[in-house]
């Protein structure tokens, strides 16, 4: 049996590796996607005062600490059975909306966009943000930096710091904002809306206007029929910060809509001994292995999932884009993984609109940003949508509010099975008779990259590809061929 090792994968928070096994004819028999890291948050948070959880869980991910901070904030509120005052909730959601804009921006422009803007067959050296800038204009690079700057500014104003915010405590926040800060935030939000619209237009002109790309998006290689999960508000519209978790089946029918506190009735995590990460699946459907279909409990969480699982967007500009999206792609639900990039931009627009809604809310500068808890702490669940998927934090404490148990199901974790399946399908489709070429490398990347695996950020001088080294071993273990790709 021949074995292809791809190590390390990059643009994943932490590290990952892929093993592809070929039979004697040179066709793919199986693919394994391994996560080689474990840090143990569920263990070492035990014994800590529960109000530290929004600070400790920040460090699960430095790209999306805001997501963990908010899930933790809601969980500690639940632990203390305290409802923060409305201004605190609005401030948290405002921070969160600005964060979404930053995060989705950096992923699209530096990671996902180049595949389309430059084309999957473009020279490796051009398939990056620099190539994008040359093609679309120097102005674009400046706008991307500006969007990131603004997003992090808002996080700092409300959250205290740019990375690893510190202001959420049980019952609300440690501070509010002044009118002057509110004005700054509003001004930055108006830029965000323009920038989101610009990004959608760029996608429309460059990607949707190009038949080759449209074929790629609609093609079978990147299509999987799975369940879809996302947080929705009381009108079943997408909401990143609050709501119930809704899951729809591959035909788009609602399977379940659950309250955060009931998540354990619906989600279980399958274990394999060759990886440190577990595979979440829907309990009621069951674990049937890494396969598609209505009978398989595998579900996807991502911007596309959120759009599939909802009945629409809660803001007008984003709603119009949502309708256009489904009209173009032939109805709901959409199963093509590359469409995640488009869905991500629709969410960028929604986040920007929500940013303005909250920044202009009359309560947003209220000095009433904290309610002191009065009940004894026990147990609580907090769920938000991380950019990569539904994020669940569950804490148990003793009567002093010291953590005794923790359960976390993290955004990208939801997608561990779908990503593995996407990689396998790309490998299956492209590796025939032992021939591995450059095309494989990029196509495998595109399958992986669409999910925006936890580490979604990049630099301006980002070359177009993940580093991949594909080593083909003969059946005797000797090296037959080595293909490298790098800038």
């Amino acid at each position, binding site marked *: 049996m021949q074995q292809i090792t791809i190590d390390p994968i990059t643009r994943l928070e932490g590290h990952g590796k892929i093993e592809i096994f070929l039979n004697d004819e040179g066709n793919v028999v199986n693919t394994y996607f391994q*996560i080689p890291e474990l840090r143990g948050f569920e*263990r070492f948070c035990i014994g*800590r005062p529960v109000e530290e959880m929004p600070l400790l869980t920040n*460090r*699960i991910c430095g790209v999306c600490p805001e997501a963990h901070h908010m899930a933790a904030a809601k969980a500690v509120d639940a632990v203390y059975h305290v409802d923060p005052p409305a201004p605190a909730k609005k401030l948290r959601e405002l921070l969160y909306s600005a964060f979404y804009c930053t995060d989705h921006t950096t992923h699209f422009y530096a990671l996902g966009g180049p595949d389309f803007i430059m084309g999957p067959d473009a020279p490796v050296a051009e398939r990056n943000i620099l190539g994008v800038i040359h093609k679309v204009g120097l102005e674009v690079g400046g706008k991307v930096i500006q969007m990131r700057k603004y997003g992090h500014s808002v996080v700092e104003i409300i959250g205290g710091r740019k990375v690893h915010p510190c*202001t959420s405590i049980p019952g609300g926040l440690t501070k509010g904002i002044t009118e002057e800060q509110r004005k700054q935030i509003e001004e930055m939000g108006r830029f965000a809306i323009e920038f989101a619209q610009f990004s959608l237009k760029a996608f429309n002109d460059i990607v949707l206007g190009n038949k080759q790309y449209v074929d790629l998006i609609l093609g079978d290689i990147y299509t999987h029929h799975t369940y879809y999960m996302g947080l929705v508000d009381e009108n079943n519209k997408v909401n990143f910060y609050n709501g119930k978790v809704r899951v729809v089946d591959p035909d788009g029918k609602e399977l379940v809509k659950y309250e955060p506190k009931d998540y354990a009735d619906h989600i279980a995590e399958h274990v394999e001994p060759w990886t*440190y990460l577990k595979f979440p699946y829907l309990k009621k459907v069951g674990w049937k292995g890494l396969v598609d279909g209505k009978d398989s409990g595998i579900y996807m969480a991502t911007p596309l999932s959120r759009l599939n699982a909802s009945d629409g967007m809660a803001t007008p500009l984003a709603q119009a884009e949502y309708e256009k999206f489904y009209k173009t792609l032939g109805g709901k639900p959409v199963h093509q993984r590359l469409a995640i990039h488009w869905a991500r931009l629709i969410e960028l627009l929604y986040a920007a609109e929500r940013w303005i809604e909250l920044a202009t809310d009359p309560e947003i500068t209220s000095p009433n940003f904290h309610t002191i808890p009065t009940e004894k702490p026990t147990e609580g669940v907090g769920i938000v949508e991380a950019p990569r998927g539904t994020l669940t934090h569950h804490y148990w404490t003793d009567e002093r509010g010291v953590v005794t148990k923790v*359960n976390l199901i993290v955004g990208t974790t939801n997608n561990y099975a779908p990503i593995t399946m996407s990689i396998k399908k790309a490998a299956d489709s492209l590796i025939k008779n032992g021939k591995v070429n450059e095309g494989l490398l990029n196509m495998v990347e595109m399958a992986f990259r669409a999910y925006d695996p936890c580490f979604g950020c990049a630099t301006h*001088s980002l070359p177009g590809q993940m580093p991949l080294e594909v080593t083909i071993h003969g059946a005797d273990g000797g090296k037959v061929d080595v293909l490298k790709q790098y800038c």
Partner: protein
Amino acid sequence: MSKPKFAMYWAASCGGCEISVLNIHEKILEVDAAFDVVFWPVAMDAKYKDVEAMQDGEITLCLFNGGMRNDENEHIAKLLRQKSKILVAFGSCACEGCIPGLANFSSLGEMVDTAFTTLTTDNPTNLRPQPSYTVPEGVLHIPTLNPFVKTLDQVVDVDYYMPGCPPEPHQIAAVVDLVIAALNGKAELPPKGATIGAGNSTVCEECPRKRNVKSIKVFNRIQMIQADPELCLLEQGIPCNGPATRSGCNARCPIAGAQCIGCYGPAEGVVDYGARLVSAFASVIDSEKPDEIDKILDGLVDPAGQFYRFNLAGSLLRASKAAQKG
């Protein structure tokens, strides 16, 4: 003439250090102009084999973040030490272990058991991940976890330390300026072993809150009081690590109303950060009666976590007895 080579690597890290480097915004282009970026897994394509093929010391500057959690982390640390002229322990994980170092309170077995027996984990045969596992098609490998987290300098020789979780962008920008100036002969690098990109005092010096004589009769959990926004947090009984924590962050957290949790590491001259805080906190407790002292201390529900939150792996004791037993 070719540009000096630059590398940045993440071991057991969260990615926050990488994001903080990006938050120097336009300045990243100066880095790009002054250096040849040869290895930065988050951002570009070079692989371990490319580093292995380099000459010893070929990389002029390597920013190494993340802690030593498994054997792969240690292997890459040794590799990059060999290939780099200047190796900087970048960020709290590399300098002192940071939050993942809290795992050093438990044994490795406890940590893995907890992760694989959570409420939602479906694990009927009680499997645990194996460093080497045979599947029908062949053998799969994953790194082996260390018994406890180590700091970068517990594994290799380190030239400079840049503290912070993460280091603040204005500090990173200052260090970038310094290194570029030094490479052009316009400035001197500090002596080896120095802490760079941070201040020489404590967070208290940067904190604008009013300070009086502290005499604590009760420790308060931050959510249980309406804290005075102008007054020192420790004085209000909120456990704040400012007194022993290195300055350089501009006291962002106390300014935002949250206690300093110590992410910038030990202040200048501190041998053991936790011990320093034991001394500081004990000194300001307002009681001379053992029973009363005990009662006041009951308000600190997790003293070891409070005092060693970022620092356990880099402390004198390093890990609990349970972690040592394995």
